[in-house]
């Protein structure tokens, strides 16, 4: 590891998918690191590459995925160089993952108990110990009547409970890093509130690091220490949460903020970002956001901007990183 305080370091990651004789460039030179115990959020809209980046960390990408460049280091281990046996030791036990839809992510023909037991493979436990631990996990995530429910199947749980069950299963492996891919997106607002508070509590109590993927800035606000904003496979802005919300500097981040209805009390009209995301097979040679950016110049269309460090720890991928210096973010510090 370059820094012993880090749990994960990703350098210049590129992920491509072949498609109709071209290559879809899903992740383009993504670099970031996570300190132990922090929550890092990846925020962006559909197709921006956040899920692909997360899956790459666990080597969960489909067989067609190509990683032409990049390095992923988890606790001194080079993830991309591991063989199947080594990966199996990491998945579930070191790095766990929870997904958006428990119905498709969990096994419908195994009981919750059996799915928790899968996480115990490799640990020496008696049958009684396994059952006690499984019940304890369900109780820990707030599922009432865990003794009975541990023998049930996923379909017998309601939406919020399924999400909790999925979290319990993921945590049973005692991972140090939890990757949460849109864990609250499909949930009602009251259940989302419960899951956010639960994940925050678990993170504190278990000393876990969390890589959170979401499109909801509200969830970012309530869970993340740092945020990376992604667009068309690039990280376009990175900062700690307070700074990003107070002083966003990339025009796309501003676009996301202004698209939040009712973001402040004054009845400001919703500013929709005109146009749509570029097709990943034909990414422009310059800045991917150029066509939709109110500050676009010829230079933006011609050359890809670098990441500029605007202030310590705050980065923006823009040729004009100070273009939003006067912009009033969501909060005032």
């Amino acid at each position, binding site marked *: 590891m370059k820094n012993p305080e880090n749990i994960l370091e990703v350098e210049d990651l590129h992920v491509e998918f072949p498609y109709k004789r071209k290559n879809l460039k899903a992740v383009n030179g993504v670099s970031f690191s996570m300190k132990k115990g922090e929550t890092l959020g990846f925020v962006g*809209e*559909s197709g921006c590459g956040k899920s692909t980046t997360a899956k790459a960390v666990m080597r969960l990408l489909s067989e067609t995925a190509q990683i032409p460049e990049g390095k992923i280091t988890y606790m001194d281990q080079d993830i991309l160089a591991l063989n199947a046996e080594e990966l199996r030791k990491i998945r579930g036990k070191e790095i766990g993952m929870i997904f958006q839809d428990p119905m498709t992510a969990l096994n419908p023909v195994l009981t919750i108990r059996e799915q928790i037991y899968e996480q115990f493979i490799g640990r020496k436990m008696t049958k009684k110990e396994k059952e006690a631990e499984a019940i304890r996990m369900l109780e820990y995530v*707030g599922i*009432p009547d865990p003794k009975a429910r541990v023998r049930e199947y996923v379909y017998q749980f*309601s*939406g*919020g*409970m399924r999400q909790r069950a999925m979290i319990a299963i993921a945590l049973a492996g005692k991972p140090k890093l939890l990757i949460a891919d849109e864990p609250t997106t499909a949930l*009602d*607002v*009251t*259940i*989302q*509130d*419960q899951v*956010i*508070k639960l994940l*925050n*509590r678990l993170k504190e109590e278990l000393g876990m690091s969390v890589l959170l993927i979401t*499109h*909801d*800035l*509200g*969830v970012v*606000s*309530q869970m*993340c220490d740092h945020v990376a904003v992604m667009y068309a496979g690039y990280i376009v802005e990175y900062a700690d*949460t*307070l700074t990003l*919300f107070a002083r966003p500097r990339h025009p796309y981040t501003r*676009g*996301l903020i*202004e*698209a*939040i*209805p*009712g*973001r402040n009390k004054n009845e400001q*009209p*919703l*500013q*929709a*970002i005109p146009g*749509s995301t570029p097709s990943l097979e034909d990414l422009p040679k310059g800045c991917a956001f150029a066509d939709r950016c109110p500050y676009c110049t010829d230079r933006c269309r011609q050359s890809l901007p670098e990441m500029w460090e605007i202030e310590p720890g705050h980065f923006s991928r823009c040729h004009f990183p100070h273009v939003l210096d006067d912009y009033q973010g*969501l*909060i005032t510090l």
Partner: protein
Amino acid sequence: MKDQDVLIDVKNLYKYFPVKRKITDVILNKPKKTVKAVDNISLQIKKNEILSLVGESGCGKSSFARTLIRLYEPDRGYIFYDKNDITHNARYQMSAYRKKMQMVFQDPYSLLNPRMKVKDIFEEELLFHKICTKSEVNEKIHELIEKVGLPETALERYPSEFSGGQRQRIGIARALAVNPEFIIADEPVSALDVSIQAQILNLLLKLQKDYGLSILFISHDLRVVNYISDRVAVMYLGKIVEIGTASQIYEHYLHPYTEVLLKSAPNLDPRKRSDKPMIEGNPPSPIDILPGCRFCKRCHDAQGICFEVEPKMVEMEPGHFCACHKYQQEEEALYK
């Protein structure tokens, strides 16, 4: 509310669904269970207004919408469309109203024929409802596609070739094709990215102004509802618990459930984080409904009377109604 302003008047509407019984239940003569999806709902939708219906999954808002548009037959109560009683209209009687009442769904893909080009989908609809003659169809289709902000090339494509936001625009165009007066939008932006959501919301607002539409907007997203609505109705387990203008609901809500919904939404200020969720657990089942207020088991302010007597809808200030014992002191005095 003046009578002439009202387009849709719903009075004491009920829609229950029977729960499928196992053969053992039939043999043992166990009592029949029902899902009380719509349980005595009364409300009015004015001409030219956007009324939002907000509540969580399973509260009955979609069932209410479908009953209102007569996709289901109501069990009890009345639905008046522009003073005409359409509650038990037969199919042939409803066809005149089908042009006036249209619906936009969360996932338009499932209602667009995947084997027909967009222009053919519109043409079929326009000719079926006799909106225009065959010679006028082309012009009307071009008008429609422009109104929803899609390029002309879209007409030659199949539904599968579009993104979520574009399909939603097609869904809206489809609804507009028949020149409706009233549109029910059932979670139209819930599946969309935030910037596309903003585009569609702005589109709906513009079309509402241009066409003078009334819209029943169903959503679980309070921020979206606050932005787009004139009035808001909050639903819980088949009942409306509070109804008022958007500013009444958001600035001085009354019902404890409304408060829970509003405060559960994640705060956009990272400095304001709390450890405890606003409310625990799930809403109880709409099948075994206990007496009293539906919300009492999870309500922070519940008192004795809440578990026994169902609260009535009371007008707390002009246009702002709430069904909660907290505000009905005389009742409590009687109970004691």
